[in-house]
């Protein structure tokens, strides 16, 4: 007791700053102790959750498989299936169990076709999981909305169209992207109509995802892409160019030729690729005439395509570029020459004086 009193007296004699520092130190020390204890709690819960996760996952997987094999020919939902639905229904009010059921369902939904996929969808509806997803759309947090839309897309809930479509101009990029994916996933090319009015950039990531979705459909009947090729939004143009190439859109030729003078180099390069892919010889002749006006990247892009389109009539053109200042173009020119006129190619060897060229020549010769 006396010691304690002594300590306090002594402490009060300290300058204010020192007192303050000690006070902060005590607070920090207590914080550290508290955080340490809490860390233990967190770790305990994480471990527990992980174990539960494994058990529940197994349980749900088994239930799902049982459910899928329990269907009877003439009934929509067999009794056995009904009882499984009821069982799952009791679990889903708990958030993390719900999450797990969804992930198990979805993991399989992606991998199986036809009746089985339909059967999984029925389960999704019957257990009431769909209602949780729909409530998410009304949440204030953008990422909850985005998650909700993503789920509705995965389980192909067409009924939610009107609810979801509202988010197409949402300020958050992620929400817009999920909405776009939903629309295209469920309504295919019709779903792409959002491109007509798209002001915000469509990232390459989003473009890839959309193309992936589109390519999964058997029905490849594409809509009119002309308006998108003329879009003021450069990313929409790029996306439309990809569509033109994948879906062989021969009817857009005139627009493509106009696009050759687009202000964006990236678009021009892409156009060259599409043109040569779609129109071959015809595009080739046109680009050959313009060749010297093109940037190096565009020239290279053209030469790469020329490799597959070349015929003996291109010989003079190729010869003009055998000494192109760009290494790759030069190499391509050599290789192409070899394919169309081997004699001339072989005779080149004698003419060369440049030190580096024989190496390149040798390579072209061997490959």
């Amino acid at each position: 007791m006396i010691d304690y009193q002594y300590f306090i007296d002594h402490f009060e004699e300290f300058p204010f700053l020192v007192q303050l520092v000690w006070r902060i130190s005590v607070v920090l020390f207590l914080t550290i102790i508290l955080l340490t204890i809490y860390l233990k709690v967190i770790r305990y819960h994480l471990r527990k959750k992980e174990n539960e996760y494994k058990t529940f996952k197994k349980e749900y997987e088994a239930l799902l498989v049982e459910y899928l094999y329990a269907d009877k020919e003439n009934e929509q939902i067999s009794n056995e299936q009904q009882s499984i639905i009821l069982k799952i229904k009791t679990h889903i009010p708990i958030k993390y169990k719900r999450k797990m059921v969804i992930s198990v369902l979805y993991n399989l939904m992606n991998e199986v076709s036809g009746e089985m996929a339909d059967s999984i969808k029925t389960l999704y509806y019957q257990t009431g999981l769909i209602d949780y997803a729909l409530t998410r759309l009304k949440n204030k947090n953008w990422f909850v909305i985005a998650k909700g839309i993503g789920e509705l897309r995965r389980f192909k809930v067409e009924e939610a169209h009107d609810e979801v479509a509202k988010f197409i101009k949402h300020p958050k990029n992620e929400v817009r992207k999920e909405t776009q994916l939903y629309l295209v996933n469920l309504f295919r090319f019709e779903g792409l109509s959002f491109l007509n009015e798209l002001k915000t950039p469509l990232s390459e990531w989003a473009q890839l995802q959309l193309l992936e979705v589109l390519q999964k459909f058997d029905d490849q009947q594409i809509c009119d892409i002309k308006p998108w090729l003329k879009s003021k939004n450069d990313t929409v143009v790029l996306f439309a160019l990809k569509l033109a190439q994948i879906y062989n859109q021969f009817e857009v030729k005139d627009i493509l030729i106009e696009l050759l003078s687009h202000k964006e180099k990236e678009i021009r390069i892409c156009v060259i690729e599409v043109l040569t892919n779609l129109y071959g010889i015809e595009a080739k002749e046109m680009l050959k005439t313009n060749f010297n006006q093109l940037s190096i990247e565009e020239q290279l892009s053209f030469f790469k395509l020329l490799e597959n389109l070349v015929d003996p009539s291109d010989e003079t053109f190729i010869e003009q570029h055998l000494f192109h200042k760009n290494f790759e173009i030069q190499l391509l020119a050599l290789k192409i020459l070899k394919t169309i006129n081997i004699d001339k190619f072989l005779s080149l060897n004698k003419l060369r004086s440049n030190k580096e060229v024989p190496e390149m020549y040798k390579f072209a010769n061997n490959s």
Partner: protein
Amino acid sequence: MMSKNKIVLAEDNSTLSLLLKFRLEKEGYELLMAVDGKEAVDLIESQSPDLVITDIMMPFISGLEVISHVRNKLALEIPIIVFSSAGQEEMVLKAFSLGANDFMGKPFSPNELVIRVKRLLG
């Protein structure tokens, strides 16, 4: 009675493998499950199965390597079926050139798989 035909099934999606295991066991096959290419190779070496079913894209050793291992290193002629997803056409071609016998694109129907298994083991 004849002993059951053994099938090694390599698939990293646990739900799908469970589903297929049930289905194929119902048809009277013995299933050996692998979650990645490495496990598959080990099982093939130790259990000498009559058929191998493998996904193309798997952790660690890919399905392609499994095929190559079976055909080149082990020099086995057992039938191999591969699963592929959309966009992996090129890989499927490679799988065939390595010696795969059949392929199924995901999503697929388990019943269809059973038919193909029966045909290959028939």
